[in-house]
């Protein structure tokens, strides 16, 4: 039995879906123990009520105004983790989790398992599996400290449906860290998009250097993206070339996705790109070059000129209705 502290990730006063992945992990690793959710940030009270039906023993609210800064959050997370006697502290392995949790681990002098994809619980032993070497190796890590600090890969932990009920909520004391005086949140430039978030989409369509321009992304690829209600992604080469914003980058350097359907258009498939998408359920490649390394992971490979194939594909899918 293990008691787990889930740290919610907030955006506009609501919990992001990464929080649900952390809850899914918490339920497994608790092994009959309980989990609490620390809802920290601006709009914590509202976000906490949105999480009341997920089966937590209690919701801990820490209202901190202003934009997110690890320096402003870590001390409170660490104090709650210590004070509550938790054995595992967890969050999603998003940019948020990767920014905040190593600092929390250092405050707790605790071992950290980052971006885990699975956990195995055997009595008091917890083994965490991680993807390494750009997805070419799986390592099993154990932590030797009383508290384990763990971030979980969102695509590998499914929360399912909320069990319902109403977890009681209470406020926790905010711990102050003077390091926060030396960093200031200026702004968050949120990407405004009607499309689903890359990390959460069921279908992802990614373009590479083969698209050749930003205009082609817009005119050739985006109609297909919108026909399928998909998220748009890109290879590093396409981002480097300025065809699309860098936050769409998929791969070791960008985001890791695992949708039901991944369509790689004009992407050769460097190892670093494959690391970000090869856990997708079905992978389609559209490329002129049959020998492109993307073939190593593609289930279907259409050898074709993308400038003809993609509009034809969009039209054909529309016929399906």
């Amino acid at each position, binding site marked *: 039995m293990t008691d787990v502290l889930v740290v919610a990730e907030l955006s506009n006063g609501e919990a992001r879906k990464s929080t649900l992945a952390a809850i899914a992990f918490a339920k497994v690793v608790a092994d009959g123990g309980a989990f609490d959710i620390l809802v920290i940030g601006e709009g914590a009270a509202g976000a906490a009520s949105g999480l009341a039906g997920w089966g937590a023993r209690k919701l801990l609210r820490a209202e901190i105004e202003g934009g997110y800064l690890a320096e402003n959050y870590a001390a409170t997370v660490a104090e709650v983790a210590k004070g509550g006697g938790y054995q595992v502290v967890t969050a999603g392995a998003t940019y948020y989790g990767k920014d905040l949790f190593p600092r929390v681990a250092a405050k707790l002098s605790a071992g950290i398992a980052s971006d885990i994809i699975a956990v195995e619980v055997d009595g008091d032993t917890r083994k965490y599996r991680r993807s390494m070497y750009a997805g070419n190796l799986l390592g099993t890590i154990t932590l030797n400290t009383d508290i384990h600090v763990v971030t979980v890969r969102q695509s590998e932990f499914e929360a399912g449906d909320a069990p319902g009920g109403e977890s009681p909520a209470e406020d926790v004391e905010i711990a102050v860290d003077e390091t926060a005086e030396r960093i200031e949140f200026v702004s968050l430039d949120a990407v405004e998009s009607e499309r689903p978030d890359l990390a959460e989409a069921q279908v992802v369509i990614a373009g590479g250097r083969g698209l050749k321009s930003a205009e082609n992304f817009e005119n050739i690829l985006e109609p297909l993206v919108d026909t399928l209600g998909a998220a748009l992604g890109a290879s590093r080469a396409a981002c480097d070339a300025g065809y699309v914003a860098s936050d769409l980058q998929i791969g070791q350097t960008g985001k890791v996705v695992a949708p039901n359907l991944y369509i790689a258009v004009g992407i050769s498939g460097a190892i670093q790109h494959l690391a970000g998408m090869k856990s997708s359920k079905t992978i389609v490649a559209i490329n002129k070059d049959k020998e492109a390394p993307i073939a190593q992971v593609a289930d*279907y490979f259409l050898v074709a000129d993308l400038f003809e194939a993609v509009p034809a594909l969009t039209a054909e899918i529309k016929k399906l209705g």
Partner: protein
Amino acid sequence: MKILVPCKRVSDPDNANKVKVSADGTSVNTEGLEWKPNPFDDWAVETALRLNENAATNEKLGEIAVATFGPAEAVQQLRQFLAMGADRGVLVEATDEQLDSWIIARGLEAVAKAEESELIVMGKQSADGESSAVGPMVAELLGWPCSTGVMSIDVESDGKLLIRREADGGVITQRITLPAVLTVTDRVVTPTAIKNGVTPADHKYPESDSGRYASLKGIMQAKKKPIDQKGLDALGIDTAMTSSYGEFATPPARTGNTDFVESVEELVQKLHTDAKVL
């Protein structure tokens, strides 16, 4: 300014699919793969070089030390960074089995104090372990602020750094006061990502997906640059590990072979009726 760039050697990241697991499953076998500088560290060194120079006059503004934890042979990767333009090296000798994120963070804390570093710039992750843990950890140990996933840096007139960093759903802008830790992503090597207030503001670095190449002169000079080589025990830190790897495995191969389809119609039909994803 004194900048410290922690770095790591990794087995050739462009051939990461050739990494093997030992027969007993307890260690990683990188035999046959060349050791390379971690590409994320290459971007960090480039960041430090841009912060530390007037690119118009080639004048240097301060000093850059590069530090690594690893076997004696890791001196080769340190020399590569010295050839790019870093000034000094620190090699803390240790085996992989002695190291985890926590020990490296503790070790870097000791190195940064000894070096009187004012800024630590490092890659946001290593290409092999991919934990992204050391940066914020060493910042916490030093009591410094930290920006992770840094995409651009503007040095302001009062010496503070205006940072744009990766965030979920967009880009966060932060203003950070030195001493501080930055972990960088590939965006920092784009032509105008770094403005240090000394290099003319309209200066554009060349388009590249990596840091600068070492010149022949740089390679020659690197051979004479000092490297402070010492054992892990010389740092006077607690070397008890907080984590260890017990087993390694190769991920399951994707099932089935690639189905090369002839036409858009065939693709749609198969995605619809076989894969059932349309």
